[in-house]
């Protein structure tokens, strides 16, 4: 591995390769594409949260001039779903609708207006069923069951796992605390509304352009639902205008657009309205949590017992994985010698939840980090010091069999503590600042507080979504005799810069500039499979596959150049467009000369690279969720000002230190960290999927509050670059981890400011005022869930921890 100062591309703050196209409006997102003879498709959606479809009559719509096709569930009878075990979705519902917004029919018409008129002519007769609208509803067996498959009634999935001796852990504790928390659901809100354009050519080949994060999974779902071999289907991910997990499932409008194109023989485009984007969802699961931990007086954890209930909405989506994720990563930050996790996901009549940035881990991380803050407060410990003392160590495993290859969390904590003036604040700051900010109006005041929290996230899921032994990422590199280099990969750029990653890596290895590299991605006809942009997997997995392919072709070029220059290939390096002998700089060739020699010697120059993560899953059922090549770490300090008169919480500043391994492009890594932290602020303070009488209350950008420029705090990002042995040049992830510590850091800062605990998000002014009222009445100064339902989880699978996991009393 070259030294840092010898990199010409890696570690430099370069623009992305699409930067110019993005600032000029040249980028063609899916809805910017049109084809000759294109028709406009629209979906008719259920107006009931839960109902049987008694009768569906499309005849009037079919007769409307300008309508070319109308389809219903009968035209697409095969169920699908992202997880093999949750094949529970119908592109168009056949017998039953399960949420307001569930699609029941689709039309293709000459223009959007005609399509909308046609929808109005479709007659649907529903028999409403009692809706299941909350976790408590879902546990009520008197209410109807949504699906005929489930672990029990409306309980989609149970998980129950126990690692190490949990009883001994609690017995060894000197202090035990229990808490309950609730994390409300929220949505991704990408600025781009989903769009899909399908074309079925006369030779029987289907092409779909879609705003998707995972074209490979769409490819598989189209094969299944349309009954066409994948070899005759081409899925192209158009540039994605924001994903955050909301475009990672195969979706109804994609399948419907394809079917309509097949029936009409004309291209069909379906672009969702903003309201439909809210119904498509796959957003953050609402999660109810119960946490009990035992600690020593210095804060060392002796046992942790964690229970979660996830409100999954109407369908499976990624939810089984989400359920496991709500328990998997509690162990990768601090040493935990005994851990019991009981989780469940329930079905409700709401838009289906799925993977949003952080996938199943921001909710438990919120609960866990607030819980730890309470313990620190109870024991009179500095929350920063308590955490840093027991950070996991490199080269160990956790009690639940996850492998820590590198952990920079202690340094992350130290850096945010230093940057935020944390110690001075704990010692002398609090009282002074409160007085400075007081408005002096009766008892009201604006009070400042600081809060700290930490987190960790995976650099890619260690196991694939559907069981197979195939690589998770494939890359082809082709070198042209003119000196052009093309790189092909199924990976999907959703704005995070994954296309640029390929260009940076190839350019670094071959001594070229990113502009010399042509990048072709996310096209199932042209590019080898990459599983997609989810689970923060791309930098590590695509990056490693790309390095493997590039280094192979580099060897050929160097070998041919060495023969010409009469030096050993090992003495040659590639930089600034030349191949040069480091021992004798007179001996050099241009890159183009060397490439021509190599092509003459070896024939057409191309190479492939593949990446499969290390097989590290533990020896128990359910061990497939959690393993990753490496884990990123983040620490955050939030400074808030709380207005005790209005209840408003204003985040003034966030200090964020992120260990994402080596920053291949620090500007992009900081961009991911800032974007994640911003999204965390939104979840902490305002974003929520609220329902009223079975309806999503706020399916619009105006009513669904997200942070504007005036709500978003200043964010100071500090990069802590551990060099991870698994990552390309030592890189880990940055796309998701930095969101995680922000909501708990804000909640802890609110407590620091006004002495009340808001044990749920979003922390709205209403909750703050209610907590202050409780405090004034002399009640517990807290708002949050009062209790945790008395659910009988199955008996846990008991798992022996690995030998190098943290142990009790060590």
């Amino acid at each position, binding site marked *: 591995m070259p030294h840092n100062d010898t990199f010409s591309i890696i570690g430099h703050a370069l623009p992305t390769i699409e930067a110019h196209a993005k600032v000029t409006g040249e980028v063609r997102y899916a809805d910017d594409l049109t084809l000759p003879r294109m028709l406009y498709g629209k979906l008719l959606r259920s107006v009931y949260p839960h109902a049987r479809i008694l009768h569906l009559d499309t005849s009037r719509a079919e007769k409307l001039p300008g309508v070319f096709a109308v389809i219903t569930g009968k035209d697409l009878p095969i169920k699908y779903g992202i997880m093999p075990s949750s094949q529970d979705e119908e592109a168009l519902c056949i017998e039953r609708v399960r949420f307001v917004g569930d699609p029941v029919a689709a039309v293709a018409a000459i223009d959007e207006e005609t399509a909308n008129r046609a929808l109005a002519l479709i007659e649907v007769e529903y028999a409403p069923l009692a809706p299941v609208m909350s976790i408590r509803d879902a546990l009520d067996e008197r209410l109807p069951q949504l699906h005929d498959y489930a672990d029990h009634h409306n309980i989609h999935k149970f998980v129950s796992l126990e690692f190490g001796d949990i009883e001994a852990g609690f017995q060894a504790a000197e202090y035990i605390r229990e808490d309950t928390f609730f994390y409300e659901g929220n949505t991704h809100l990408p600025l781009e509304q989903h769009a899909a354009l399908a074309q079925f050519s006369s030779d029987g080949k289907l092409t779909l352009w879609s705003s998707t994060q995972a074209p490979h999974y769409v490819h598989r779902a189209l094969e299944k639902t349309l009954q066409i071999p994948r070899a005759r289907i081409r899925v192209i991910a158009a540039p994605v205008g*924001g994903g955050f997990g909301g475009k990672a499932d195969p979706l109804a409008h994609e399948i419907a657009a394809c079917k309509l194109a097949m029936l009409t023989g004309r291209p069909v485009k379906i672009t969702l309205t903003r309201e439909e984007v809210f119904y498509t969802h796959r957003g953050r699961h609402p999660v109810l949590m119960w946490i009990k931990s035992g600690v020593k007086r210095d804060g060392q954890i002796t046992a942790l017992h964690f229970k979660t209930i996830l409100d999954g909405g109407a369908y499976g989506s990624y939810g089984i994985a989400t359920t496991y994720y709500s328990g998997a990563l509690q162990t990768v930050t601090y040493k935990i010698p005994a851990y019991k996790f009981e989780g469940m996901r329930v079905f409700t009549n709401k838009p289906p939840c799925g993977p949003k940035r952080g996938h199943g881990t921001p909710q438990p991380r919120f609960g866990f980090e607030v819980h730890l803050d309470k313990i620190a407060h109870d024991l009179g410990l500095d929350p920063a010091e308590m955490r840093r003392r027991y950070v996991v160590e490199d080269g160990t495993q956790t009690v639940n069999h996850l492998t820590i290859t590198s952990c920079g969390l202690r340094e992350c904590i130290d850096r945010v503590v230093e940057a935020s003036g944390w110690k001075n604040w704990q010692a002398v700051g609090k009282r002074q600042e409160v007085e400075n900010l007081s408005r002096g109006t009766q008892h009201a005041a604006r009070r400042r507080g600081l809060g700290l929290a930490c987190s960790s996230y995976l650099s890619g899921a260690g196991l694939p979504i559907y069981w197979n032994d195939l690589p998770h990422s494939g890359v082809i590199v082709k070198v042209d005799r003119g000196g052009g280099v093309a790189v092909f990969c199924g990976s999907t750029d959703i704005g*995070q810069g994954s296309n640029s990653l390929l260009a940076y890596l190839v350019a670094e290895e071959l001594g070229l500039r990113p502009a010399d590299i042509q990048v072709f991605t996310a096209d199932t006809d042209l590019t080898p499979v990459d599983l997609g942009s989810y689970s923060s997997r791309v930098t590590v997995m695509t990056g490693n596959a790309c390095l493997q392919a590039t280094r192979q072709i580099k060897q050929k070029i160097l070998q041919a150049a060495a023969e010409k220059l009469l030096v050993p290939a090992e003495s040659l390096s590639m930089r600034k467009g030349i191949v040069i002998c480091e021992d004798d700089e007179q001996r050099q060739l241009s890159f183009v000369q060397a490439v021509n020699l190599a092509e003459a010697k070896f024939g057409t120059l191309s190479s492939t690279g593949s990446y499969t993560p290390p097989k590290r899953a533990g020896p128990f059922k359910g061990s497939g969720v959690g393993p990753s090549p490496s884990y990123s770490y983040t620490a955050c300090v939030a400074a808030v000002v709380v207005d005790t008169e209005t209840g408003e919480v204003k985040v003034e500043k966030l200090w964020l230190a992120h260990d994402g391994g080596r920053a291949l492009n620090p500007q992009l890594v900081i961009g991911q960290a800032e974007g994640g932290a911003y999204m965390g602020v939104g979840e902490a303070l305002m974003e929520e999927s609220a329902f009223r009488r079975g309806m999503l209350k706020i399916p619009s950008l105006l009513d669904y509050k997200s942070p504007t420029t005036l709500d978003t705090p*200043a964010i100071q990002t500090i990069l802590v670059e551990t060099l991870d042995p698994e990552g390309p040049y030592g890189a880990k992830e940055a796309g998701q981890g930095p969101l995680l510590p922000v909501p708990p850091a804000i909640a802890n800062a609110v407590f620091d400011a006004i002495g009340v605990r808001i044990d749920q998000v979003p922390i709205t002014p209403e909750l703050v005022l209610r907590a202050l009222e409780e405090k004034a009445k002399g009640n517990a100064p807290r708002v949050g869930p009062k209790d945790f339902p008395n659910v009988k989880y199955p008996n846990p699978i008991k798992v022996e921890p690995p030998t190098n996991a943290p142990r009790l009393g060590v």
Partner: protein
Amino acid sequence: MKQVLHLRINGQPYEVYVPVHKTLLEVLREDLNLTGTKHGCELGECGACTVLVDGTPRLACLALPIELQGHEITTIEGLAAGNTLHTLQTTFAELGAAQCGYCTPGMLLSAKALLDHHPHPTRDEIKHALVGNLCRCTGYAKIYEAVERAALRQADKETWFQVDE
């Protein structure tokens, strides 16, 4: 009811025959193939479709072309002069202010209107000028930095170090 409208967009005259209830956003994207202007809600909530009308930011999804005859409309396609990018475009590209890029056209036009009227904005003035443009990727920080760098560069006409790709 369809009507012939005469519009002036990015300095060019256009004659379109469109239903009078069609929004400027729809006419730009569907009739003129100027797809650089984006839509995020079509209800005036997100700012993605921001264009300039006589130099002032306007939401194309709420504007009717029939009211804009005789006015100068600027879209993202009109920001660069030929192949020479506007300073804001250069700084947005350099600093990673465009991630997914979907809010970028609207954001750039709001920023241009700001700098045209206030060449030396404070950070607070930038925030207020961009408050109607939602961005879900960046956390806005890189966008502020790009606007500030563009303001400096326009003021000083400096020869800045160009990042060598």
